[in-house]
């Protein structure tokens, strides 16, 4: 067997020892910095660019670009593996993002869906109001496409904002649409649902059931999403003995 005997450390040139220590210190510094960077720090939404900018960089694929921006926006509340409460988001910028995504692809339901079903789930009334405004804007430009979101906005106004006047005003906008706009009778009679003494869970369940039965929801993902929401609402109702 070979005898592994070493010479003294003193035999190593001083420069090499110094360099080894220097690089070890650098490595420690780097590790500390990386650890600090990995600490959770919330990054706020930034202002979106002009819609023409996104249209230009999409090279003609503006529809795909709008969906990718919407997904990017939707993922903003997941930062470094942690879910951030929607309340912490800047809703002015969020509204601008939703508007940009909509303008980039007016055929997409994604921004209206995010406004009515995702970002409206906050307690701050001014933030919910901003989301309702976005839905209203989309509804004004294409009532046939967005009447469903408008009915959801009615319930948001009634139950989350406790603003029956606003809810009735929104319902009036739906009922005053010409007959050429095809929608189920209950949507035109949204005023009756609002004036009924139903609580938030009951009216949400009623709306989801009506939407599912109307046959207007073609997208399987949305159907699944609504069915999941309905089962959750029913569970809540049974817990409270309603």
């Amino acid at each position, binding site marked *: 067997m070979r005898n592994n005997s070493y010479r003294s450390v003193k035999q190593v040139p001083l420069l090499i020892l110094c360099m080894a220590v220097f690089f070890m210190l650098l490595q420690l510094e780097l590790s500390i910095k990386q650890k600090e960077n990995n600490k959770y720090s919330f990054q706020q939404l930034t202002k979106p660019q002009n819609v023409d900018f996104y249209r230009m960089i999409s090279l003609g694929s503006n529809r795909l670009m709008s969906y990718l921006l919407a997904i990017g926006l939707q993922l903003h509340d997941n930062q470094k593996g942690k879910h951030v409460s929607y309340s912490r988001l800047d809703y002015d910028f969020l509204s601008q993002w939703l508007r940009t995504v909509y303008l980039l692809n007016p055929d997409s339901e994604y921004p209206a869906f995010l406004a009515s079903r*995702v970002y409206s789930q906050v307690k701050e009334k001014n933030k919910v109001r901003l989301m309702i405004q976005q839905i209203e804007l989309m509804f004004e430009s294409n009532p046939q496409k967005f009447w469903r979101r408008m009915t959801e906005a009615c319930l948001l106004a009634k139950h989350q904002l406790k603003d029956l006047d606003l809810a009735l005003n929104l319902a009036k906008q739906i009922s005053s649409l010409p007959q050429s706009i095809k929608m189920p009778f209950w949507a035109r009679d949204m005023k009756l649902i609002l004036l009924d003494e139903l609580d938030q869970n009951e009216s949400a369940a009623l709306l989801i059931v009506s939407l599912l039965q109307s046959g207007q929801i073609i997208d399987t993902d949305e159907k699944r999403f609504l069915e999941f929401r309905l089962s959750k609402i029913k569970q809540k109702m049974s817990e409270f003995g309603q």
Partner: protein
Amino acid sequence: MFSQTIALFRYLLSGLINTRLLILLLGITLTGILSGQYISELAIINSKLIGLAFTAELLRYCLLFFMVVSIAYRISQDYELGQFDRLLSMPITRAQYVFSQLLVILTAGFIFSIPVIVSMPFFASFPLAVYWFLSVYLELILIGLFTMLAILSLEKLPVAIIFSVAAYLLSRLIPQINSALEQSVDYYSDEVTFRFSEYLFKLLQYVLPTSSSFAQNNILFELVVNWENLIEQSLSVFIYGGFLLFISLIDFYRKEFNH
């Protein structure tokens, strides 16, 4: 003469198609499928549509870049290894060389489009996959011809690649640039530089291929095969391809190889 062209085409193609290329195509196919599935998972609604459009777009750009690099590299090798001197000392005309390269572009474009037909059925119906396959194939032919013109006239690989990519991007951006300029007319109409750029981009609109020459990703969201659009694209590519081909021929005939 025809058999000579075919023989030359087979020789040129053998320098392009190899095992490494097939592995790369397999890699692109897998990347397309996996990234499309990943994007689908992220979307709350319309997930299948988004996955479909994303995969289609990703494959298109990967394959376009791949086509540009492959064609430019293949022809640049002919310059570097002095193949032109050898080929032209044989009873082969310059036109035969260019037509053989055209056949290489047509064949390579078809082979490079295979990842589209393999990955797209994971997200869409087979007819829609065929539609996108043909649409990307036409676009690959166009960019292949652009690259052939660039490398034949510029002779240097990096410059030819940059030129081809720039020409492609400019062709895709021209409609957007023109619409932006039209919107700015009220503010800058008195400025000479503005008028000059407006004139320049309007002129470029006629020199570069029209937007109908390119695959239209937006159509995928309709989930209906738009054959009319494909016919229009074929016609645009045929016309512009012919223009590029004959410009390449003029340039190639004017070249002096006996340095």
